[in-house]
């Protein structure tokens, strides 16, 4: 509606990510590089999916099952990329540890690893917010606004910003959960990220129905909060275990 509104929408979608970035990531250049590379990976997955689906577009909005398949394939592809990301990260971890030995510094701490996972997840979340919300925000800086018929109570920009915020949270923290699941071999954590992603994607299908956004957005936020809480509990547990293990080690010496 004006520049102020445009900036407002952008901050709704990206505000928490920005504060995470400034607080944690901006001081460590390696994390910035991780963030940029995971954003790039997400962008490439989006391009691949759009190349696949280009022939079928534009889809009719009255029929909803093509959208289901679209979401299924996209989520599946992105989860496969997450596993690939994990494998690349393992190799990188070995290189970093070897480097640390060479310069006689301590190896990667557990918190370092979790920070790298957080930066990777934040990259995915920021990429989602940027491409699904910010890319369309240019008209919002002008004098008018836009409403979608299916969700006519709020401007489209605000709705997409709110959804983008939920998804950014989900992406960020599910990456941390997934990485720690792969590292510890915890099946629950490993399956958590794809399942949550899938559920969140399916929830947005409800938006196709008239007035659906009043149902799907609160549900989406429930999913985001579940992710947050689970990640918090997992991180807390691992930190406590780590501290007690270090305590035992130093006690036994």
């Amino acid at each position, binding site marked *: 509606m004006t520049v102020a509104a445009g900036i407002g929408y952008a901050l709704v979608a990206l505000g928490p990510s920005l504060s995470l970035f400034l607080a944690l990531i901006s001081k460590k*250049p390696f994390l910035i590089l991780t963030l940029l590379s995971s954003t790039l990976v997400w962008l490439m997955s989006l391009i691949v999916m759009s190349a696949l689906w280009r022939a079928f577009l534009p889809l009719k909005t009255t029929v909803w099952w093509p959208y289901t398949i679209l979401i299924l394939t996209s989520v599946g592809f992105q989860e496969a990329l997450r596993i690939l990301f994990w494998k690349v990260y393992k190799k990188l971890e070995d290189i970093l540890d070897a480097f640390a030995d060479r310069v006689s510094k301590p190896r*990667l701490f557990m918190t370092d690893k979790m920070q790298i996972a957080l930066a990777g997840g934040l990259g995915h979340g920021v990429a989602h917010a940027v491409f699904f919300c910010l890319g369309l925000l240019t008209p919002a800086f002008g004098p008018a606004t836009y409403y979608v018929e299916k969700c006519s109570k709020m401007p489209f920009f605000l709705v997409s910003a709110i959804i983008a915020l939920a998804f950014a949270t989900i992406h960020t923290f599910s990456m941390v959960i997934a990485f720690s699941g792969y590292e510890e071999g915890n099946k629950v954590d490993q399956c958590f990220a794809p399942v949550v992603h899938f559920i969140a994607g399916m929830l947005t299908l409800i938006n196709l129905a008239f007035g659906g*956004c009043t149902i799907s957005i609160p549900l989406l936020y429930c999913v985001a909060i579940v992710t947050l809480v689970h990640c918090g509990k997992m991180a807390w547990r691992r930190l406590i275990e780590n501290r007690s293990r270090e305590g035992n080690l130093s006690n036994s010496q």
Partner: protein
Amino acid sequence: MDTTGSILESIGVEIIGVMSPVSICMFLVVLLISFLSSTTSPTTSSIRTAANLVYLETPSDSTTQKLEGALLNAAVFILLITLVTFLLVILYYYRFTNFLKYYIRFSALMVLGSMGGSILLSIIQIGNIPIDCVTFTVILLNFTVLGVLSVFSNGVPILVNQMYMVALGIIVAVWFTKLPEWTTWVLLVALALYDLVAVLAPGGPLKMLVELASSRDDELPALVYEARPNVGSRAGSRGQSLGVLLAGVSEGEAVELSVMSSSENVGSDGRGVSETRSGNVGRDGRGANETRSGNVGRDGRGLNETRRGNVGRDGRGLNETRSGNVGRDGRGMNETRSENEEIDGVREVEIEGETLPLMGGGDGRERAMANEEIRESNESDRGRVLERIIEGAEERERGIRLGLGDFVFYSVLVGRAAMYDMMTVYACYLAIISGLACTLILLAVCRHALPALPISIALGVIFYFLTRLLMEPFVVGTSTNLLMF
């Protein structure tokens, strides 16, 4: 949670040191362009510059006509640039270095003054800023003079120098985006190819320039952005981290390479030369701004840049780690610029056959170790002189260099993407940054001058067209239906 001394703090500082000014330049160019074109002004593309000498694009031409015209334009532009670069090589060969330096200062003056001034005028016009002529002139004059002063002098703080480099890049890039669309894209691709040939092929002008400079152990007069890490801000291996990291990967290989000044060097203990090269000397916007009609003679000379090819300059600022048993020295991706005569003194000593150890970062321990070695390997008095000189000199040296042409053309690509839509801007930004990261990593591996344009421009152009043709309908279609994943 004890993270002091974690390696995560220090890896990748140099890459970020180069990426942040590039990102800032691109961001400001996008802002300026969206601000300046927010009011549709129809008279934009009617200027005739060297980049569209042959063919003036109008929206009503057919596709093949536009394509042919754009190719002709690009060919003429590249030809002009090649000629000017060869002229520069000749001038440099006959030691007209001072002339070149003054010429570059003059071109910085013209870019900042007249081109920057006209951009400022359009901003004032569009933004309805109340400012009078006298104030405007005083501000512009001060801005320009400080810029000219900061270009080649040592007394100006490096931050001011860096800011003015970014400002020059922004101004020239905004001017370049006034070119018509097809011409811009074809020109970008042609310039990337030219850069590749000119730097790597045996007869290329830039390669000759770099070799000339290194054989004279002299610094090329050029506009180059130098990214210096903060000296003394953190203890421990700063600059050398990436170099050693890559050294670890390619195991067993002696990482030090002496590239250019092998004549003065003993053995393979070299000076790691990692430099990035980028645009060329003379590849200037000179093209873009030779107006045939008599307006203000502006020359986008802003693009003179080159890089300092020289390494042999005794490893100034090439960082290394000397952990006790590692047999090789990791050279960081830094190079230095030697500006003082003191350093020549060092070189003479070096000719005696000692390999000059490279000084690491502000880490006292490493410096002490290197000092030990210097003292051991030299004669006592010479050694002490060396120490002092090195310690004095090391504060100034260090940093990856990126030529100003790279800034300009990355920003031109992103600015042109901004004229279409913001989604292409983000995609192109990511592509360019990843291309730059690849180039920097290649630089650390190859250790000689590399063109910084080709990979980034190639990725940028590919991503632009992929995004515009494939991704945009997909994403816009799903997100306007509030369907997201």
